C-alpha cells in the first residue's frame, strides 16, 4: 500500500511531547517541520495526544480532505499503531505522558529529546535548561548527545507551575507577568517552597510591594533554582532555554544574570522536546 511517506519518498515522523501542563507535537519530513501544534494536557493525556496528532496530520495535509482526495489511506479518526505504520507515519512519544500514548511506535525520555531538539534549533548548543510544568532540568550536551543531566522533580519550587501559580496570585497571565518584569525591579522572596512562597507573595503585596517588584522576585527565585541545577552539570555556552518559558524575556534576562552567560532561545523552544522525539 502506497502511503504518503512513500509518495514523498521520505519518512514522516510525529514527535509528541506530553508534559504535565501542555502537550506539544510536531510533524517532520526529511528534517523539516511540516506541522506543529500545542494544547493543554488536561486530565486525559491519551485523548489529548490523539487530538493533537489529528491536528498535526490535518495541518500537514495527511488527513482529512487533502489526503482523502489524493486517495491516501486515512490513519484517522482512531489512530492505532498499525494504521499509522501503513500510512508511513511513525509516532515517537516523550514527556511524563509518554507511556499513556498507545499509538506511539516508541518512547524516549524527555532528557534525550530536549537535547536532540535543542541541537536542531541551535546547532552546537552546549547546555540546555528546560523549566517544565512539574520539573526543571539542566542538560550538558555535545553534538546533541547528553553528557550529564540534573532534574528537579520532587518539589514544585522553581518549576513552571510555581511561576503560573505566582502569576495567578498577582492576577496576571504569564505573558503579562513578563511585562511586569520590564521595569527590572525586584524584591527578595525568602521561601523556596512553592506553597510558602504563595503566602509570602500575599504578604509582600499586602505590605505595599509593587507587582513589578514581586514579579521580579518570583522570576529571580525560579532563575536561581534553574541556575543551581545547571551549575551541577557544568554550564558551557551556547545555552538554550527550551520549553514554553523560553518565551519569557524577563526569565532569560534573570537566568543570564545568575549564570553570567548569554541565554539563547528560539521561537520553537516550546517544541524542543517534540522535535527531539520526531528526530529519535
Amino acid at each position: 500500500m502506497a502511503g504518503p511517506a512513500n509518495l514523498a519518498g521520505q519518512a514522516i515522523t510525529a514527535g509528541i511531547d506530553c508534559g504535565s501542563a501542555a502537550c506539544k507535537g510536531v510533524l517532520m519530513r526529511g528534517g523539516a517541520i511540516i506541522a506543529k501544534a500545542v494544547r493543554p494536557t488536561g486530565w486525559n493525556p491519551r485523548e489529548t495526544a490523539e487530538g493533537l496528532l489529528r491536528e498535526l496530520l490535518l495541518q500537514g495535509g495527511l488527513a482529512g480532505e487533502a489526503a482523502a482526495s489524493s486517495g491516501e489511506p486515512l490513519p484517522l479518526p482512531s489512530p492505532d499503531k498499525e494504521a499509522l505504520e501503513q500510512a508511513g507515519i511513525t509516532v515517537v512519544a516523550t514527556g511524563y505522558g509518554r507511556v499513556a500514548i498507545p499509538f506511539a511506535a516508541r518512547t524516549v525520555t524527555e532528557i534525550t529529546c530536549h537535547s536532540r531538539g535543542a541541537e536542531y534549533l541551535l546547532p552546537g548548543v552546549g547546555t540546555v535548561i528546560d523549566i517544565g510544568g512539574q520539573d526543571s532540568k539542566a542538560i550538558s550536551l555535545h553534538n546533541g548527545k547528553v553528557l550529564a543531566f540534573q532534574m528537579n522533580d520532587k518539589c514544585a519550587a522553581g518549576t513552571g507551575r510555581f511561576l503560573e501559580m505566582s502569576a495567578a496570585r498577582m492576577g496576571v497571565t504569564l505573558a503579562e507577568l513578563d511585562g511586569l518584569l520590564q521595569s527590572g525591579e525586584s524584591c527578595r522572596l525568602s521561601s523556596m517552597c512553592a506553597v510558602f512562597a504563595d503566602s509570602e507573595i500575599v504578604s509582600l503585596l499586602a505590605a505595599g510591594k509593587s507587582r513589578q517588584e514581586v514579579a521580579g522576585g518570583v522570576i529571580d527565585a525560579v532563575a536561581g533554582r534553574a541556575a543551581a541545577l545547571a551549575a551541577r552539570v557544568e554550564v558551557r555556552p551556547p545555552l538554550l532555554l527550551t520549553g514554553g518559558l523560553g518565551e519569557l524575556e524577563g526569565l532569560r534576562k534573570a537566568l543570564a544574570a545568575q549564570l553570567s552567560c548569554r541565554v539563547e532561545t528560539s521561537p520553537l523552544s516550546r517544541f524542543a522536546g517534540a522535535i527531539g522525539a520526531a528526530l529519535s
Partner: protein
Amino acid sequence: MLEMRKELPEIFDSFAEARQKGFLAMKKIKEEGKGVVGQFCTYTPLEIFMAAGLVNVGLCSTSDETIAEAEKVLPGNLCPLIKSSYGFAITDKCPYMYFSDLVVGETTCDGKIKMYELLAQIKNLHILELPRKQNTEEAFALWRAEIIRLKERVEKDFGVTITDDMLKEAIRKRNVERRLLKEIYELSAMTPPPVSGLKQLQILFGSQFKFDWDEKVAELQQAIDSIKAAYAAGERPISDKAPRILITGCPMGGVTEKVVKVIEEAGAVVVVYENCTGAKQMDRQCQEEGDPISNIARHYLQIGCAVMTPDTNRLELLDRLCEQFKVDGVVEMTLQSCHPYSIEAYTIKTHLQKKGIPYLHLETDYSTADIGQLATRAGAFLEML
C-alpha cells in the same frame, strides 16, 4: 532436608520470600528457647553471636509502613531507614525486632546514634562505638576493645562463655558464607550475566533471613550449581547487549528494589552491588589464623562506608568491581536525608568522571510515589550510554 533438590525458580523464590517466611522460622527458634540478636549495620561482627550459638537478624527496615508513626517522635527530614526501623520498633510490627533479646546499634551516622538513644528506652540495646578512621592505631585499639565489650555483653545477657575456639569456628563459618555469596554475585561478571540484578539482590538480601546455617550454606551452593548448570545448558535470560550497571550507595532491599526495577525495565542489567547488601560484606575473607578478636576487629574496621573519613576503601572496591564486572555505568542510590552518602556522592561522581565511567545519582525514599521520576532518570541515563 539437604538432599531435597530445588529447581531454579523455586530457589529464587526461596530467597525472595526469605524475609516473610523467616517470621515463622524465628517464632519457632524462640519457642525452642534460643537467643536472638538483632543488628542494623554491616560493621556489626556477627561472629560474636554465632560463637555464642545465638541467632542474628538484620533489623534495617525497608518499608514505609511505620514512618508516619515514627514521625510522631522523629523529625520528618530524617533518613527513611532510621524512621522506618524506629517505627517498626515502637509499633511492634516487625517480628524480628519483637523477638530480639538484644539489639546492637553502632555509632555510624548522627541520625542512627540519636535514634538508638530513643530505642534504648524500649529495647535491650548495646551500642558499639565505631571509629571514623580506619588506619590509625588508636582506631584499631578502640574497635578491638569494643569487640571485647560486645562479647562480654553477650556473655552476660545470655549466660554463656565465648572461647577463642568458638570465635575461630564462627569466623570459619562466616567465611564460608561470604565465599558462597561472593561466588553468586561473581557469576554476573560473565557476559551476559546468568541472572538479573533483581534476582541477585533478592538472593543477597534474602540470605540474611535464613537462620539455619547448614541449610543456608547448602541452599546457596545449590543456587550456584543450578545457575551454572542452566547457563551451561545455554539459558540466557539476559541479553548480551544490555548495558551493565553497578549500583552503589545506601543499603538496598525491600521497597528500594524499585531502583533496580526501573533500571532493568529500561533495558539494562545490574551486575553488581557495591553496598551493604552486596559486595561490601562479602568481598574479603576474615583472617582465620591468630587472635580471633584482633582478626574480627581488623576485618570489620576495613569495610568501606561513607561514615568513614577518608573513605578510600569504598573507592578501592568500586574501582575493582567496575573493572571485574566490565560495567558501562554506575548508579548511586542514596536515601533522602542520608548526609554521609549524599555528600560523598560528589566524591564518587568526580572519581568516576576521571575514569570516564558514566554516573547517575538517584535519591529516593521508602515511598513508591517517585517511580515515574526514577524511570525517567534511569531511562535518560541509559539513552546516554
